[in-house]
């Protein structure tokens, strides 16, 4: 293809800016002096960070988010890795069927999942429980973990495991010394994605939160729908910072495998 001329470059740069700037536009407002939100801020200060970290309900929301994200990450990586190893042992037809089931949460509209989970959680008394939200977020993250680990599992030479067990290694030792090191990048990548997915997720959380397990996105959602102050911008900025750390870690993990 012909190399880019000045117009093409300008077009790409302009569009890239139009994609990134709106994402980050909220961050300067977290350092605004005013008590209303307007872009760009007139005076700068960190007083809204003080308000955020001085408010027990915001702190609790942040901690709840981190707890739910960590638990869903752990649960989806363990069950997802196990599932990816299981899929490998199935025949092609069963594998396609099972994979299809795992991909289901990716294609179902999230509001349908939210309402269905809410209906089920109500009858089980799980609304407003950490375990309910963790299960919901694990379900949402599972497809990504299964796919991610699946890719590294597919690259695994089955003869290695066979050789190890032929040399007398127990199944657990084969897993620990042969399988695990080669699928670890896939697990880490899937785990980071699962963590961020849970930390970012708002719709399932709004329906399942109840008054007791409000995550950071749930608090932001509630504030934004009524009247918002720069504290919301601080909360949003914290979410951006965490997401950027997650994406940087994700890149690091994938670069190592490549």
């Amino acid at each position: 293809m012909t190399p880019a001329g000045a117009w093409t470059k300008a077009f790409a740069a302009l569009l890239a800016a139009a994609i990134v700037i709106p994402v980050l536009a909220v961050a300067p407002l977290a350092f605004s002096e005013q008590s209303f939100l307007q872009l760009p801020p007139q005076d700068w200060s960190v007083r809204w960070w003080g308000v955020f970290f001085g408010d027990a309900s915001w702190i609790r929301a942040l901690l709840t988010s981190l707890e739910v994200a960590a638990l869903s990450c752990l649960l989806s990586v363990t069950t997802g890795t196990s599932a990816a190893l299981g899929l490998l042992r199935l025949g092609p037809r069963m594998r396609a069927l099972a994979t299809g089931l795992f991909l289901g949460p990716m294609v179902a509209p999230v509001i349908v999942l939210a309402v269905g989970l809410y209906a089920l959680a109500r009858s089980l008394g799980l609304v407003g429980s950490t375990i309910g939200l963790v299960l919901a977020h694990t379900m949402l993250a599972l497809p990504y973990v299964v796919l991610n680990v699946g890719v590294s599992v597919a690259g695994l030479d089955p003869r290695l495991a066979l050789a190890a067990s032929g040399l007398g290694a127990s199944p657990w030792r084969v897993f620990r010394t042969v399988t695990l090191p080669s699928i670890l990048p896939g697990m880490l990548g899937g785990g980071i994605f699962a963590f961020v997915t849970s930390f970012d997720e708002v719709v399932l959380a709004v329906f399942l939160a109840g008054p007791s397990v409000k995550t950071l996105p749930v608090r932001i959602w509630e504030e934004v729908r009524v009247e918002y102050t720069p504290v919301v911008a601080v909360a949003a900025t914290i979410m951006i910072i965490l997401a950027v750390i997650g994406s940087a870690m994700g890149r690091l993990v994938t670069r190592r495998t490549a």
Partner: protein
Amino acid sequence: MNAAGRQRAMRVAVAALLLTPAMAIIALGFVAPLIRLAILSFSSPAGPLAAYRELATVDVYRVVLRNTLVLALVVSVASLAIGFALSLALMRLEAGWRAIVFACVVLPLWISVLVRTFSWMLILERNGPLNRFLAALGIVDQPLPLLFAFPGVAIGMVHVLLPYAILPIYAALSRIDPALLRASGGLGASRVTTFRRVLLPLSARGLATAATFTFLLSLGFFVTPALLGGPSDTTISMLIDSFVNERLDWPLAAAASMTLLAMALAVIGLAGRFVPVSALSEVG
């Protein structure tokens, strides 16, 4: 049972054991809620099909359905057009610039839709930066009503969906052998002809995947239209939310959910004729 058969049975048993925990989560968190909704949708006191009948006959609901489809169509076409243009530009950029622009494209995928939508609320405001920018350029005299109106929802949704359009299109374009394009040009085809007869057919699968993805996601979008839209921009997902949280009408909420799910499945089924469903996962 012979040794080979025993080994096979053993293998299947191990596979089942490894799959059980994840399957249990999918059964409890995905299958069971959908079954519960299906049952609820037929449980209206006025008769099993009453909720569906109400959805199909009440004018307000039909308008909402039309809104949802129109919005999904507008947003998908816009995302596809912009995504295709940017993918073509990406192909022609030098490697260094390409990496930077590509990083800009995927960065938003990591950031919560809620945060991105909140940003747009501030940008689209009556006195927000976009309106002031347009006024400064002399394009408008009065601030445009962007927020809590259709343009705001459309802009916000295109912004969220753009990466899902760009990734499959760019992947398809980068699989094209550049020698084909050189050959086409070398044999005297104009740039338009090369585009129409070589580039477009060879990227068709990527375009189809992108179209499926953007349309599917925009049908079920909730956060962005709920925050950026006005009363006349109600989509089916917002309707479901109001059935649950305001009208407390579970049969109606469940029937609307089943309708939305059926629409999503129809899109996947239709797309499956052109795009293998597994291609949808390439984007994730």
